[in-house]
C-alpha cells in the first residue's frame, strides 16, 4: 500500500489525538472519576493505535495498545486512577509525542518502548480481578510481539475490507533451505516479492526478528493480494534457497480462528474483551464526527499561496484606485470602489481562515508547569483565560518559544517555595495565569504570577554591573522601566543556574522575537504580590492599515494600530526639556522624533511654520513623529526587505504602493524611548 499520501493526514490526526489525550489526562488528574474524560483518552488511544498499525508504526501501535488497555480497565472500574499512575501515563504520552514528532520530521517512528509497556502492563495487572495477574509484565510485552499469527482487530478489519474488495487473503508459509547462509537477505527478497504483489499484514516472527535472523528456517506471513495462489507460490519460489512455499487461503469469516488460535495469550484476551465492549463508544464517536463534518482540512501551504495571491491583488487594487482618481471617470470610479469593497470583505475572510486559536500554544503549558513545579519542589497551579482567542498562524508558530521562556521565568524566579509563601501569608500553592484577549487590531497575552514580584534594587544593580544602563540613566528610570531592563541583552538575573531558566540565554530573545512579530512586551510587578508580563501582538502580519506620510519626496507608512492621533502644530508649540524637543499633547509631555533627521532625508528643509506630527504609542509611552505631510490611510501589504537588509533601524519592512514604488514601513515602537 502506498502510505505516503496518508502520512500527512496520519500526522495531523495523531497530533490532534495526542493533544486531546494530554488535555484529558490533565483533567483526569483533577477529576479521577469522570467517565467522559476516561472515554476521551480511551478513544484517542484507540484511534492512534489503529492508525499507526495501519501505517506500519509498530512501536507506536504497541504502546498505544497498552495505554488503551489501561484505560479500558479504568473505564470498567477494574483499575482505579492513582496519583502515581499519572506520571507513567504522562511519560507514555511524552514517548508517543516523541514518536509522532520523529515521524513528522521524516523518521521511522521507531523507539524502544518495552520499559514503558512494562510499566503500563503493571498498572494494568495491578488489580486482583484481571486475569492478567497470572502473567508478568515482561512476558506480556513480548507475547504481544511474538503472537502466533494472532490478529488484532485492526488487522482483522484490513482482511475484512480486502475480502470485500475482492482481494485474496493468504497465509503464506515460506521454508528456507537449511543450507541457506544469509537468511536475512532471503527474507528480504521474499518480502520484496510479496510487496510487489500485495501487502504483508503480519508476519511471524515479526519483520524485525526476521531481519536479525532470529528464526529457524521457516516463517509465516499473512498477505493480501490480487494475484492467485499459484502465482504467489511461483513468484516466491523464484527466490533462491527457498525450499518450500505453502499458501493457504484465509476464508472470510474464519478470522476468528486466527484470533482464537492463541487463546492462552492473555494479551489477546484483553483485546477480545475490548472488541465487544468497544462498539458503543465507536458509534458514539462516529456520531460526533458527523457533527463536525462542516469543516475541511486545508493544507496550510495552500492558504499561504492564497494569501500571496491576494497580496498581489491588494497592490493592484491600490494601483487601480490611484488610476481611477487620476482619470476621474464616474463609471470607472464606481466599479473600482465596488471592487475595493468586495476585496475588503475577501481580505477579512482570507485573514480569518489563517486564524488559529491560541489554545494550540497554551495547551502544552499545563503539563510543562506541572513538570517544572515538581522539579523545583514548588506548588503551582495554572489558570488559562481566553484560550479561544485567535491569532494569525504565522504569529502562533513564533510565539510558543517566547511564552515558554516567560513561563519558565515565572516559575523559576516568580513563584516562591511553598515555605516562603506560607511565611508571607500566601497560600502555599502559587498560581500562574495565562490570559489572552483581542483588542482592536491586536491580541494581548498576559502571563501573570502571584509570586515575589521583581526586586527593583537587584535588577538595577545587575543592570549596572553588566553595563546595560549607566548610573546616570538609572536615576531617572521608573519602576516599569527598571523591570523591563531584564529583557535587555546582556542582562540575566539568574543568580544560580537552575536548569529551568537561566541557561545563559536571557529574556532578550523573548523581546526580540516579539518585536520581530511587530509586537511589544511590557512588565509590571508589585513586590510580594506578583508580576505581569503583557505581550501585545498584531492580529495579522501580512496586510495592515497604515498612514502614508511624506518627508520631502520620500514616502513612509506608519502602522495605524500604533497611532493615537495626527496633529498639525505651530513651531512655537515646540518646547524644550532636558535638551529634548517636546510638545504638550492634551496635558502630556510628549517627546518629538524628527524623522527627517533620523532618516537623514537629503536636502530637507522645513518650509513652513507648521509641523505635522503623528502621535504614536507603545504601552503607556508616547512619542510624536514629525513628518513632512500626511498623505492618507491605506491598506498595505507588508513585505520583508530581504535577507540582505535584515536589521535596518526603525524600519520593519516595506510595501509596494499603487504606483509601483516601494515605501518603507516605520517601526514606531523602536522610535519610542
Amino acid at each position, binding site marked *: 500500500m502506498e502510505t505516503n499520501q496518508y502520512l500527512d493526514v496520519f500526522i495531523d490526526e495523531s497530533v490532534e489525538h495526542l493533544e486531546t489525550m494530554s488535555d484529558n489526562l490533565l483533567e483526569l488528574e483533577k477529576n479521577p472519576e469522570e467517565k467522559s474524560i476516561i472515554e476521551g483518552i480511551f478513544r484517542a488511544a484507540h484511534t492512534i493505535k489503529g492508525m499507526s498499525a495501519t501505517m506500519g508504526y509498530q512501536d507506536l501501535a504497541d504502546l498505544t495498545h497498552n495505554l488503551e488497555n489501561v484505560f479500558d480497565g479504568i473505564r470498567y472500574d477494574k483499575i482505579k486512577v492513582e496519583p502515581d499512575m499519572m506520571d507513567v501515563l504522562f511519560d507514555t504520552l511524552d514517548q508517543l509525542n516523541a514518536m509522532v514528532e520523529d515521524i513528522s520530521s521524516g523518521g521511522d517512528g521507531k523507539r524502544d518502548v518495552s520499559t514503558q509497556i512494562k510499566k503500563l502492563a503493571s498498572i494494568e495487572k495491578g488489580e486482583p480481578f484481571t486475569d492478567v495477574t497470572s502473567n508478568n509484565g515482561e512476558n506480556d510485552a513480548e507475547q504481544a510481539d511474538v503472537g502466533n499469527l494472532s490478529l488484532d482487530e485492526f488487522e482483522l478489519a484490513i482482511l475484512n475490507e480486502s475480502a470485500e474488495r475482492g482481494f485474496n487473503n493468504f497465509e503464506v508459509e515460506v521454508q528456507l533451505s537449511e543450507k541457506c547462509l544469509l537468511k536475512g537477505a532471503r527474507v528480504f527478497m521474499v518480502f520484496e516479492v510479496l510487496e510487489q504483489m500485495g501487502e504483508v499484514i503480519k508476519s511471524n516472527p515479526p519483520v524485525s526478528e526476521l531481519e536479525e535472523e532470529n528464526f529457524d528456517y521457516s516463517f509465516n506471513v499473512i498477505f493480501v493480494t490480487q494475484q492467485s495462489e499459484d502465482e504467489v507460490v511461483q513468484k516466491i519460489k523464484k527466490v533462491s534457497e527457498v525450499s518450500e512455499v505453502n499458501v493457504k487461503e484465509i476464508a472470510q469469516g474464519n478470522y476468528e480462528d486466527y484470533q482464537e488460535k492463541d487463546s492462552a495469550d492473555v494479551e489477546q484476551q484483553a483485546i477480545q474483551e475490548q472488541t465487544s465492549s468497544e462498539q458503543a463508544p465507536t458509534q458514539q464517536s462516529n456520531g460526533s464526527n458527523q457533527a463536525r463534518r462542516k469543516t475541511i482540512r486545508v493544507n496550510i501551504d495552500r492558504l499561504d499561496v492564497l494569501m500571496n495571491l491576494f497580496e498581489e491583488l491588494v497592490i493592484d487594487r491600490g494601483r487601480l484606485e490611484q488610476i481611477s482618481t487620476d482619470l476621474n471617470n464616474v463609471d470607472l470610479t464606481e466599479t473600482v470602489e465596488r471592487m475595493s469593497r468586495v476585496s475588503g470583505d475577501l481580505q477579512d475572510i482570507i485573514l480569518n481562515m489563517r486564524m488559529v486559536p491560541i489554545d494550540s500554544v497554551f495547551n502544552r503549558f499545563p503539563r510543562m508547569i506541572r513538570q517544572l513545579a515538581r522539579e523545583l519542589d514548588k506548588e503551582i497551579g495554572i489558570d488559562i483565560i481566553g484560550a479561544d482567542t485567535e491569532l494569525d498562524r504565522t504569529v502562533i508558530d513564533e510565539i510558543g518559544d517566547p511564552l515558554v521562556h516567560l513561563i519558565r521565568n515565572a516559575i523559576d524566579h516568580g513563584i516562591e517555595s511553598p515555605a516562603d509563601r506560607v511565611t508571607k501569608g500566601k497560600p502555599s500553592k502559587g498560581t500562574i495565569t495565562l490570559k489572552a484577549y483581542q483588542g482592536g487590531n491586536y491580541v494581548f497575552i498576559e502571563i501573570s504570577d502571584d509570586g515575589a514580584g521583581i526586586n527593583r534594587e537587584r535588577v538595577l544593580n545587575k543592570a549596572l554591573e553588566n553595563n546595560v544602563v549607566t548610573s546616570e540613566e538609572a536615576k531617572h528610570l521608573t519602576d516599569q522601566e527598571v523591570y523591563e531592563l531584564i529583557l535587555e541583552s546582556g542582562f540575566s538575573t539568574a543568580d544560580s543556574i537552575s536548569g529551568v531558566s537561566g541557561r545563559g540565554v536571557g529574556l532578550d530573545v523573548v523581546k526580540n522575537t516579539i518585536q520581530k512579530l511587530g509586537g511589544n512586551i511590557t512588565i509590571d510587578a508589585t513586590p510580594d504580590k506578583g508580576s505581569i508580563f503583557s505581550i501585545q501582538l498584531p492580529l495579522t502580519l501580512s496586510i495592515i492599515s497604515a498612514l502614508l506620510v511624506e518627508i520631502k519626496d520620500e514616502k513612509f507608512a506608519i502602522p495605524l494600530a500604533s497611532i493615537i492621533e495626527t496633529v498639525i502644530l505651530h513651531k512655537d508649540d515646540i518646547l524644550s526639556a532636558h535638551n529634548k524637543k517636546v510638545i504638550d499633547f492634551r496635558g502630556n509631555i510628549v517627546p518629538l522624533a524628527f524623522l527627517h533627521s533620523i532618516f537623514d532625508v537629503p536636502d530637507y528643509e522645513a518650509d513652513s511654520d507648521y509641523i505635522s506630527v503623528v502621535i504614536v504609542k507603545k504601552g503607556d509611552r508616547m512619542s510624536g513623529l514629525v513628518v513632512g505631510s500626511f498623505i492618507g490611510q491605506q491598506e498595505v501589504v507588508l513585505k520583508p526587505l530581504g535577507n540582505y537588509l535584515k536589521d535596518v533601524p526603525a524600519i520593519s519592512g516595506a510595501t509596494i504602493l499603487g504606483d*509601483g514604488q516601494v515605501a518603507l514601513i516605520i517601526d514606531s515602537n523602536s522610535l519610542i524611548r
Partner: protein
Amino acid sequence: MPYEESTLNLKKFIVFEIADEEFAIPVEKVGAIERLESITRVPQTEKFVKGVINLRGVVIPVIDLRTRFGLETKSYDESTRIIIIHLDETEVGLIVDQANDVIDISEDSIEPAPEVVDEIDIDYISGVIKIDKRLLIMIDLHRVLSIENPSEYTNTEG
C-alpha cells in the same frame, strides 16, 4: 563556435562594465537584468546600499557596485542596469554601468587574480579571464555582499 568537443567545459557568463572595466559573473547566479527603476532609499544602511526596488512585486535591495568598489560615482543613465543575483538565500540587485554580453568561457581559461587590477581591491576578485585582447574580471559575489568590514577597503592605486 565549435561546440562539439569542448561543450562540457564551457560555462556561460554575464559580462558587464563598470568604469571601462569588464566583469563576469556566472549566468546561473543571475536572475534578471533590469533597467534602472525608481529606487527607494533605505536610511541608516551602508553607503553602497542604494535602497530597494520593486521587482514584480518583490522588494529587492540594490547595491551600487561603483561605490562598493570604491570607484568614483557616475550619474545613472540609459545604459545603467541592475543585475539581480541570487546567492544562497539572498537576492540583491547590482547597479552596473552597462550589461550587454553573455559569453561562453571554458573553465580552463580562468586564471587566478593578479595582485591588483586597476583600482579594484583584489579581495573582490576571484579570478580573471583572458579572451583575445579582453580581460574579464570574475567577481567574488560572497565578498561583495558581505557587510563585514566594508570600511577596511583600501584604495590601491594601480
